[in-house]
């Protein structure tokens, strides 16, 4: 049965690239990509729940949310948005380097992506530290100089939950990128096999998209 379609897979099997359940590299690649997208669907719904909670409570307490938002640092938030978009660019260029077999550029671009991700997380640490100092972390030490303390606390609860979950995803992404760097240095990726770079790229861009929505909703809504 398998003889009919053997010619192409055998050529690939020589390089140990195709698992036995797949016909060829391309089928294997598209199956892996579909799996990654299916995972990202669950991620859309995971963050969707947080965005829904935000939408409902912002509708109920618009003034408290605007006041809480006004206290966030819009400069740091904007810089972080640009840093993250930059990291998406280097990630996209990494995929291109892997596809064209430029291994040096691949490792360099992956390291650049990791660095930009670390800058993002570093800025986030500075922001979180400011919130701890200003008693804006929900809990026994939360204190708000203004009306509607309970609802402002709700805003900060959502702020920490949403940006915190986003940061957790960034940290996982950094780990995945580190693994790609090690594999890349061993020369594992090239024009014939770059699926892990492609798929971790999808994950990284997804995390970028989440921030693209978090930034205006959390930082910009109380600005004017």
């Amino acid at each position: 049965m398998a003889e009919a379609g053997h010619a192409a897979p055998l050529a690939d099997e020589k390089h140990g690239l195709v698992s036995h359940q797949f016909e060829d590299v391309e089928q294997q690649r598209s199956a892996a990509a579909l799996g990654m997208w299916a995972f990202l669907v669950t991620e859309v719904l995971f963050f969707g729940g947080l965005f829904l909670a935000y939408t409902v409570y912002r509708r109920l307490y618009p003034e408290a949310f605007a006041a809480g938002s006004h206290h966030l640092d819009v400069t740091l938030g904007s810089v972080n948005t640009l840093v993250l978009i930059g990291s998406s660019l280097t990630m996209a260029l990494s995929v291109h380097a892997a596809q064209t077999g430029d291994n040096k550029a691949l490792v360099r671009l992956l390291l650049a992506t990791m660095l930009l991700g670390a800058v993002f997380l570093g800025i986030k640490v500075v922001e979180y530290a400011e919130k701890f100092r200003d008693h804006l972390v929900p809990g026994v030490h939360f204190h708000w100089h203004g009306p509607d303390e309970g609802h402002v606390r709700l805003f900060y609860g959502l702020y920490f939950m949403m940006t915190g979950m986003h940061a957790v995803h960034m940290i996982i992404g950094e780990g995945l990128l580190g693994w790609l760097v090690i594999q890349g240095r061993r020369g594992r990726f090239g024009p014939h096999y770059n699926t892990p770079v492609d798929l971790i790229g999808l994950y990284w861009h997804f995390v970028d998209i989440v921030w693209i929505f978090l930034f205006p909703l959390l930082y910009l809504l109380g600005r004017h």
Partner: protein
Amino acid sequence: MAAHVTPPSTYYKIFATLVALTIVTVIVAFFDLGRLNTVVALGIAVFKASLVLLYFMHLRHSERLTALVIGASFFWLAILMVHTLMDYVSRQWIPVPGK
């Protein structure tokens, strides 16, 4: 069909557009446009996310099955959002005696 190789020039153009849109959305946020502020901010965010999805995530050159999966995820997200908001938005419309 091999995976489509997007040229770096496309990535640079998308990056430049995303940076420009980020600056625009920050500037617009400092003007009071009433309800339009949220509409503009979300409109720009949706447009930026679409660019990332289409070009950085290669949706533009993906199989139709991928597009279907992504479409399905937005459909489920819409069910989550719309059905919950139908309740919260309409609660004040009908006065409930004793409330």
